[in-house]
């Protein structure tokens, strides 16, 4: 069975989808990612779909699920590099992935994750200051 590799980069996990997705493969990715976030305590997940030419309602739902599931595990998910044609199709289909963060490319996705986590840390610091 095909498997989509998950790379670890510091506090983040990076997934680059390079193959044509079918349902089973997408479901496996969901399971693998959630397990990996749990195991590594990663704070962010970056999914690069710039090589993906088709995202239908099922895969769209998987992306949304991954975002919600990792959020429960205290990690943010950013989907990066969506093709224009894929974005237009998803909107027409009625899926706006409102719970998922997006960015133009991996670099900006990383930056977005940094600020998300950074602002969390600041909050903790603020609290700490407050109690002193």
């Amino acid at each position: 069975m095909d498997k989509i590799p998950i790379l670890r980069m510091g506090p983040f996990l990076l997934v680059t989808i390079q193959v044509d997705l079918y349902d089973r493969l997408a479901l496996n990715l969901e399971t693998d990612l959630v397990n990996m976030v749990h195991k590594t305590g990663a704070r962010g997940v970056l999914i690069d779909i710039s090589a993906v030419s088709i995202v239908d309602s099922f895969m769209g739902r998987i992306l949304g699920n991954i975002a919600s599931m990792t959020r429960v595990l205290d990690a943010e998910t950013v989907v990066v590099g969506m093709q224009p044609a894929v974005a237009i199709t998803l909107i027409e289909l009625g899926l706006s992935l409102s719970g998922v963060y997006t960015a133009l490319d991996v670099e900006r996705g990383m930056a977005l994750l940094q600020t998300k986590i950074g602002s969390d840390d600041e909050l903790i610091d603020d609290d700490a200051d407050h109690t002193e």
Partner: protein
Amino acid sequence: MLITLSKDSIAITREQDVVPLRNRVKEVAVKIGMGLVNQTKLITAASELVRNMLRYAGTGNVLIEVVSRGRDTGVRLTFSDKGPGIADINLAMQDGYSTGKSLGLGLPGTKRLVNEFSIQSVVGQGTTVTILKWKNG
């Protein structure tokens, strides 16, 4: 008058078959010069319908045709299965309705992606869904 210019058929028996189907549809769409966005919409629609077919009927067949009407050229896909059929088509076509555990965007969402959409179903005998996407649709 709708004229069929070429015909091709692909059998769907398992989930992975959706990949060659997508490739075949893409090939045909590229050949007639369909734009990238319309290609993507058509292939996504096909992907949705194959999932329905696999989920409710298990197996089925997809007919890929290049058709023309007047100055338009397009791709027509016919999905036929011998599954349980759909009892209430109007209900199935409503946004948000689903008997399976999906979002219920399947049929109505698919309809929005293509230019023409028709569905025939007989309970106990099977379902046939036909979609058509024009090159410049």
